[in-house]
């Protein structure tokens, strides 16, 4: 490899000292440094600045760090609590256990806001969008907003992101299932063409409530699998701090197909129908 006579740029030099250059690029700079006093002086000045910055960074911030023992014990306790809760059991059972825990305050604080937000959200957005969708889809791809406005319970972020709730509406008691089918005028003979689904999924705070359940037709591409994919995606966004829980709930309860199109940037469902 030919020796390099031009000096490396500041960016190349920094990438070199940071070990960020490709193995092909590094040796040339290394050889150049061996021969060039000027660049060696640049490098040592760079390292000095880094040292001064680090000193300031730690000097200001380290004194503000509380001791680790308390937070460490808290994390252990919370993991032990999580371990006790069944991973995919009935959400009611899980919720009962979690609500005994120390997150109660969080949950209560979120309660009023969520109920108001979801309530207001669906009322505003459903009237027009829903009518259009119902006109396009004679079956209840989007639930009837009057019958199924969506219902949520108080839930903290840590609960949403640490407890696995079952989103499988198969576990809904038969009597409730029957009521839901009845209000949607689905006869026993037709029932096989539908799957009962939560409008706002339990993992995002939805409840097992007649207002949050509707028979979702199996025959279209906008089916349970598509909706599950959306719910999982929203859940990830919420837990990565990219989306508000209240927004996720509102998007699901107002018009989940529009939400799907918005979040997956596609007009038709990408999951196999």
């Amino acid at each position, binding site marked *: 490899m030919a020796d390099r006579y031009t000096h490396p740029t*500041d*960016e190349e030099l*920094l*990438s070199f000292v*940071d070990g*960020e250059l490709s193995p092909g690029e590094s040796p040339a700079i290394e050889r150049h440094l061996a021969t060039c006093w000027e660049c060696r002086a640049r490098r040592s*000045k*760079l390292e*000095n*600045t*880094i040292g*001064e*910055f*680090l*000193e*300031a*960074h*730690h*000097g*200001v*911030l*380290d*004194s*503000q*760090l*509380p001791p*680790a023992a308390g*937070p*460490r014990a*808290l*994390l*252990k306790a*919370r*993991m*032990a609590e*999580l*371990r006790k809760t069944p*991973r995919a059991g009935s959400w009611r059972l899980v919720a009962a256990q979690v609500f005994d825990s120390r997150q109660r305050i969080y949950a209560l604080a979120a309660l009023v806001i969520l109920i108001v937000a979801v309530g207001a959200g669906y009322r505003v957005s459903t009237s027009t969008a829903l009518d259009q969708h119902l006109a396009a889809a004679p079956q209840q791809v989007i639930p009837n907003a009057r019958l199924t406005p969506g219902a949520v319970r108080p839930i903290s*972020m*840590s609960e949403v*992101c*640490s407890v*696995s709730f079952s989103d499988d509406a198969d576990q809904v008691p038969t009597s409730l299932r029957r009521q839901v089918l009845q209000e949607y005028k689905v006869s026993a003979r037709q029932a096989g063409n539908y799957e009962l689904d939560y409008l706002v999924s339990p993992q995002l705070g939805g409840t097992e409530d007649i207002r949050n359940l509707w028979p979702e037709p199996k025959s279209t591409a906008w089916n349970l699998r598509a909706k599950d994919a959306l719910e999982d995606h929203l859940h990830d966004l919420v*837990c*990565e*701090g*990219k989306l508000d829980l209240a927004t996720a709930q509102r998007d699901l309860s107002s018009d989940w197909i529009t939400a799907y199109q918005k979040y997956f940037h596609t007009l038709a469902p990408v999951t196999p129908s």
Partner: protein
Amino acid sequence: MSSSIESYQRLAARSVEGEQARDVASALEAEVISLFDELRPRLLRYTLSCGLTSGDGEEIVQEAFIALVRHLQLGKPRNNLRGWLFRVAHNLALKRLSENGRRREVAAGIDEAERHVDQNPNPEEHATFSQQRARLLAALQALPDQDQRCLRLRAEGLRYREIALVLGISLGSVSASLTRSLARLGRVSER
């Protein structure tokens, strides 16, 4: 007789499964705790440098680790958990900041820096040292938010590609940002 043997075998199998599940759970918890020990100070420093109080920062670090437990339980990708944790903490920190609607001035640290010079025995050196650090902190504060974050994340040991992942910018932007910031800080410390 045979049915009781079968049911015993079923029971035994179930208890083995239970034990295995417990082993998996405790291995996961041990892994999370060891990551916590290693990364908590770094994550916390980063959230503080974003302008959060230590109380808020601590809460966010807890939430990030609980999210990690869930991430691991669901068998999601485990390559680069450090970058993943920083990304989650970064997003939560920004959210908390906008909720708080205020930014604590990071260079409340200037006073802090002056307190720290006490270890230095020579009063003249004291003054120079503290002035220099105050100048450096002022220059640091004057950098655009994104440039400050790049520097802080690098100071916490992140590789360029991890910083790019956390901040959602390109690799080239990371290296350009660090070069620019260090050049500026370098000019200040020269004076």
